[in-house]
């Protein structure tokens, strides 16, 4: 499969899935969304998925060793910035800039 077709199918797939999640409430018009199981999942699944995505981002470096310290430190920086200012952009840029600095100095 060449690059054009591969990326086109990835983009089409993700476009479809994203549109589906946005259209779902309009399609079911609240009939199914009232179901207590869906409410339960809708309440607890999103926070779980977010944490899993954070861990997934490091799936190749997670280890109980000092090598993981820069990642951990920068995640804490993101958390601190976000608790202090609650501006997504400041938290993301601040943490990433610090991480890039550490990596390029040879720490990460």
């Amino acid at each position, binding site marked *: 499969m060449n690059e054009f077709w591969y990326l086109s199918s990835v983009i089409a797939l993700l476009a479809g899935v994203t549109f589906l999640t946005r259209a779902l*409430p309009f399609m079911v018009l609240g009939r199914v969304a009232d179901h207590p199981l869906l409410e339960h999942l809708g309440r607890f699944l999103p926070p779980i998925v977010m944490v899993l995505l954070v861990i997934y981002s490091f799936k190749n470096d997670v280890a109980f060793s000092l090598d993981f310290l820069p990642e951990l430190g920068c995640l804490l920086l993101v958390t601190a910035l976000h608790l202090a200012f609650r501006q997504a*952009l400041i938290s993301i840029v601040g943490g990433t800039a610090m991480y890039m600095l550490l990596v390029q100095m040879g720490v990460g």
Partner: protein
Amino acid sequence: MSLSPLNALVLRTSLPVMFGYLPLGAAFGVLFSELDYHWLYATAMGLFIYAGAGQFLAVGLLANQATLTEMAVATLLLNSRHIFYGLSLISRMPNRGWRRLYQIFGLTDETYSLITATPLPADIDRGQFQLRITAVNQLYWVIGCTLGAWLGSQLEFNTAGIAFVLPALFMVLTIEQYKHLRDIRPFIAALLIGFGTLLLISREQMLLIAILLSLSVLMMQYAARRTHKRPEA
């Protein structure tokens, strides 16, 4: 140049989103350019997918050479937080036909909050206002994605470590989830399941397995609560 009151209101209202979407879109674009694909694909993603976290996740998945199934499931679950969003908007969306479809497609967090939180003067058409807000917000995003990807492909700056924007974004979303939920249990459960899967079961298939495990835990917990409650009902 004079703007109609409608367009002036649209531009003024969407200004904060512009300051958010241009840099965040550009960050996505620079990250995307690390994959060494043509920058036009970044534009296409902003145009057809139009999802902040979803597009960042897509870069991570592409870089990890995830399968199409993995990509679909991960995106579906990432967006699952949106499923309950539109409900409150159904009665407040006057547009029909393609305008309604486009508005549903473009219903990002930021567009949702502008549409629900802006009081409209009586002489402004609600449907037109909502449609144009959706369109300019997407325009900011597409410009950001394109600029970032193009710059990333032209300039030779040292981008080592830039992939950290991904976990940083997810960390921010995690904190927002906590502020919203005020319940620590799902976060602890996710840490246990996530690290458990990674260290004991599979590194490669971690996301899919961990999500399936979490789903089963939530469903068992739901079932247990139901049977527990039944005698009182």
